């Protein structure tokens, strides 16, 4: 019993962080129709910002989170203006952006590589390797804090999108750019804003990731497929779906990893993806496609 509980806790703890990593991806897709393959690379960017502050001034990674988020959001503004603005009206937008972001991922990796070399880094605040022990069961502090912070950010973001006027404008712009424009929405501003929020989330995730995983510029390739699986399982563009997907998959992966073998725990993510495509192609919380 204690063993099951323990595995469950570990799965959930990891799931919380993965949820935040995935939610930025999901948001950017949901509101911008951009499949941002560079998202993990930008997360690593955020992690480096946090790492530098930790190394130089001993600033706590969680305290660095707002700074990383804002910095990366600013980067997002620049990236949007440079790369995506001119594509926004094209019919093949969504598909084009997959490739553009692939290119972006390479650029980010190359840039980070030249700045920070390819040595692996990790921040180590005290809580990163500590745990609460409750009898036989322990809860890793680092993961716990990261998970809680993640969920708080995601909740705030969801409320913003659902109820604020800007949130409305963001959703409307996604669905029909021209219509939104005709109703008085400054779609360019809204697009930049949404993209910046998405990349800001990458920055925030980076801060948390910096003490949960170790990282180096080329690491992002390992995360992409995993995060994508989570997003598809939850339903492309649904943030709630991403959170649920991340938690479910992480828990299942934890059980598979413990009982069947660590090699197979990553397989869980991809297998789940295939199963969901078979039985419910739109994902857990996605919208139904047109033809039955």
């Amino acid at each position: 019993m204690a063993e099951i509980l323990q595995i469950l806790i570990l799965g959930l703890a990891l799931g919380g962080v993965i949820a935040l990593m995935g939610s930025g991806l999901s948001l950017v897709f949901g509101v911008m129709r951009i499949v941002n393959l560079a998202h993990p690379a930008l997360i690593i960017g955020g992690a480096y910002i946090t790492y530098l502050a930790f190394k130089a001034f001993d600033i706590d990674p969680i305290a660095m989170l707002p700074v990383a988020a804002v910095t990366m959001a600013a980067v997002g503004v620049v990236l949007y203006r440079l790369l995506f603005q001119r594509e926004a009206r094209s019919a093949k937008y969504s598909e084009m952006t997959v490739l553009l972001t692939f290119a972006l991922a390479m650029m980010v990796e190359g840039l980070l590589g030249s700045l920070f070399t390819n040595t692996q880094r990790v921040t180590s605040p005290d809580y990163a390797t500590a745990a609460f022990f409750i009898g036989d069961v322990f809860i890793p502090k680092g993961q716990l804090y990261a998970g809680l912070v993640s969920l708080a950010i995601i909740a705030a973001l969801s409320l913003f999108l659902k109820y604020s006027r800007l949130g409305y404008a963001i959703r409307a712009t996604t669905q029909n750019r021209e219509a939104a424009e005709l109703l008085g929405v400054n779609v360019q501003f809204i697009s930049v804003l949404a993209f910046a929020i998405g990349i800001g989330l990458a920055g925030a995730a980076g801060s948390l990731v910096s003490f949960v995983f170790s990282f180096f510029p080329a690491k992002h390739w390992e995360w992409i497929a995993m995060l994508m699986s989570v997003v598809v399982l939850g339903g492309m563009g649904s943030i709630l779906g991403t959170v649920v997907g991340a938690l479910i998959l992480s828990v299942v992966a934890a059980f598979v990893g413990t009982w069947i073998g660590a090699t197979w725990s990553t397989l869980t993510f991809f297998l789940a993806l295939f199963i969901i495509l078979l039985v419910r192609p739109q994902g857990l919380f996605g919208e139904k496609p047109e033809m039955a």
Partner: protein
Amino acid sequence: MTKLLEVTNITAGYGDGPAIIDGAHLTVEPGKVHCIIGPNGAGKSTLLKAICGMLSIRKGDVVFKGERLNGLRPDQILRKGICFVPQERALFAKMTVRENLRMGGFILDDKKELERRIEGILERFPILRERADQHAGTMSGGQQQTLAMARTLIIKPDIVMLDEPSLGLAPKVVQEMFDIMKMMSAEGVTVLLVEQNALMGLKNADWGVVLDLGRTLFEGPAATVLADPRIQELYLGGKKAA
């Protein structure tokens, strides 16, 4: 005679393609209903898109209340007082009817006032109230058209430009639609519409414009347009009208 909107000799096209309209002109007088007719592909929709800023104008001027509109974005032009409902309806398919109406009043800052006006719209169009929580994309063609039209009533613009408002509407509703338009113009909202249902359109309009070959071929009081035998033959399905 005061002019609210004046379009002089404009040229416009898509991207870097050929000029679709070349030498179109148009005069809009306050408080009247104007109807543009013309064959398919003549450039009617293109003209409206150019006026509202969705296409860039290559030559010529659009002057509204003495101010040049060339080069402004659609959202800026809307705030100046020109509202446009395109032929493709421009609804938010995955938002509910109510949310669509709310977006219609996006430029209103007063939330309470907005809700009140939405209530008024729902009052006037029972079908919309019935479907208030249905996604707009799943409504029937005519229902969508009704919604698109109703949405313009939320903000009270100086000019509404409607691209084929009667498209897909049942005869009974078409009549209602034109009644609403008349009422709007009575309230001081100027109406500029494009119609393929040309007879109906001209009958309910004050002023008629024939657009063909990317140019304005004729402009005059609606009754004159209706009576012209050449126009009847070319654009109104001749034989029957004669």
